[in-house]
């Protein structure tokens, strides 16, 4: 009986917002895919494959933003290093795609990727073993960011590093990784990273069908991650996380090992970021150390800030809006983008502390608002 009630309350949480979100997401996905595949290219309603890929990229960013929101919005951990988890997931996928090239590379080596042949490497390094298997690569997409987040989070949270200190150290983490991945000796292609992918699971990456499939897969994963996050954060676990955000000392005195909660939330978030990276790489066709740059990580934070932290859909909306703006801006006048981004940082923190969704929420009646914070 009690379990039934519990299930019910969790499902109730899910029922509130998730369906709307999932429905909108799927509607757009289905419409865009159909318009790409079914309509002739000269039709007014045709959606180009380029647009499909762009949308897919945005959805990856949305997932990444959600990952940051989970830790920042709900637990107050401002990570300036989530780009690292994203990039690690991306590299794991990139390694799989690299192995898929086989002997179709410039040097025609069946085993070694081109850059290794170029560096006169004789054999495949041990950490490249197994990446020819899709399942193994996918496992690594989850494990590598997860383990790094666990090790880092465990070290940081246990010694009660918090606030700006933590932010700075996460930034140092991604910075260190960037330096490391720039090195040729690391065996990840150095400067150029991994690129020139041919196919995934046997499907040509350039084909429209594959592009649409990747886009749809991204939408599905995003929806699944949304529901999972909603469930997790709607449970008592989520309430403890909010408690940690607002009064960590109190939560400890109540008896919660707050560091353990933070570590696992951080791991969850890192895994989401890793998945986002893995979905991103086959769509954009390249992964390089630039993804580790501190600027990238901090940009994610601004997406979340713009959308409104502390709400999952806020993060998604923020990521989509800012990236759309970025695409438009860099197309029209590239120099202005950094001005705009910088101004956005300042404006959001000064005038929109709860983001765009916060702005909308303020116009809703009080009871609604309360449900929001309680969720």
């Amino acid at each position, binding site marked *: 009986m009690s379990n039934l009630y519990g299930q019910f*309350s969790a499902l109730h949480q899910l029922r509130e917002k998730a369906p709307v979100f999932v429905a909108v997401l799927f509607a757009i996905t289905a419409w865009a895919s159909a318009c790409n595949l079914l309509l002739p290219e000269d039709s007014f309603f045709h959606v180009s494959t380029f647009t499909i890929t762009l949308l897919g990229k945005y959805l990856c960013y949305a997932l990444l933003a959600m990952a940051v929101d989970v830790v920042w919005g709900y637990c107050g951990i401002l990570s300036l290093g989530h780009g690292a988890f994203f990039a690690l997931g991306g590299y794991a996928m990139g390694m799989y795609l690299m192995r898929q090239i086989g002997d179709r590379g410039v040097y025609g080596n069946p085993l070694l990727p081109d850059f290794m042949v170029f560096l006169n490497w004789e054999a495949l390094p041990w950490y490249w073993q197994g990446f020819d298997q899709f399942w193994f690569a996918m496992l690594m997409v989850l494990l590598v960011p997860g383990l790094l987040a666990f090790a880092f989070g465990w070290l940081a949270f246990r010694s009660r590093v918090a606030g700006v200190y933590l932010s700075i150290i996460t930034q140092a983490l991604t910075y260190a990784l960037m330096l490391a991945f720039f090195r040729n000796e690391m065996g990840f292609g150095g400067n150029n990273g991994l690129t020139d992918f041919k196919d995934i699971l046997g499907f040509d990456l350039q084909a429209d069908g594959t592009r649409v499939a990747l886009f749809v897969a991204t939408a599905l994963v995003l929806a699944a991650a949304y529901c999972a996050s909603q469930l997790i954060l709607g*449970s*008592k676990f989520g309430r403890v996380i909010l408690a940690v955000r607002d009064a960590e000392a109190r939560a*400890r005195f109540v008896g919660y090992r707050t560091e*353990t909660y933070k570590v696992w939330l951080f791991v969850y978030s890192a895994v989401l970021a890793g998945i986002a990276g893995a979905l991103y790489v086959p769509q954009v066709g390249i992964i390089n150390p630039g993804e580790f740059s501190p600027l990238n990580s901090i940009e994610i934070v601004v997406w979340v800030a713009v959308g409104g932290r502390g709400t999952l859909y806020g993060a998604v909306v923020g990521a989509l809006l800012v990236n759309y703006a970025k695409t438009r801006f860099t197309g029209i006048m590239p120099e202005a983008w950094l001005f705009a981004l910088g101004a956005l940082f300042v404006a959001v923190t000064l005038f929109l502390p709860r983001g765009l969704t916060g702005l909308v929420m303020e116009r809703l009646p009080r009871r609604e608002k*309360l449900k929001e914070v309680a969720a």
Partner: protein
Amino acid sequence: MSVRGAFGELANRDQLWPFLMPARGARVDVSKQVLLYIEDLSVSFDGFKAINNLNLYINDGELRCLIGANGAGKTTLMDIITGKTHPDTGAVYFGQNIDLLGRSEAEIAELGIGRKFQKPTVFEAQTVYANLELSMRAEKGIMASLGSRLTGEKRDRIDQVLATIGLSDERALAAGALSHGQKQWLEIGMLLIADPRLLLVDEPVAGMTAQETERTAELLTSLAGERTVVVVEHDMEFVRSIARTVTVLHQGSVLAEGTMEQVQNDPKVIEVYLGDEH
């Protein structure tokens, strides 16, 4: 932290994976009628001795008031008991068998020691109801929280506490929206629902109306006996109204101890603390 130490802790599964933790077996041994032993305790911050060779024994089931001027070491003492601050020397035992030093705040809380802060701290973004739910005595591990269900029994208990602290009507309100006094009450409610053996209450009536103060006094007195209560308070009227035994702290050590009258008539106390009141 040595590397070995770090790995040792990584392998320590009850530290890391609380859901694997064995059920708590240790019972507090109070066969000598003493619940809290504090012996030869000292701690200093940058050369300033906040606690100086302090000895204090709290009997099981008593209501004890700690008084003392600012900087006498009352809050620091609470910090040490609850694991927030680590002393330089000395021992703190919960019952005869449980050493409190070296334990984390969470562990100490789970042993049954609750604390109310000087400044009311509640989870402001969450409802009054959720505040109480979170504070309830229960498994506090991750898996337990993920799968936690509110049983009817638990809901009854929350309703009961809500009634005790007079916040039944505000149950769905965000805690941050409560008045200062109501927050004080909510925090007391959070203590109650955790069902602690020992309550450490830091200035419970600050910011309360006279009526609320009276109710608090009633509540605290009614708690004593079943539980042990240690109250730190500045409000002398309040202390007089509830205290059976009063301990006066001065510069980090115990200056005097006894009933209110005894303490009030103690020449040392009159000199350093109550002097200007008389």
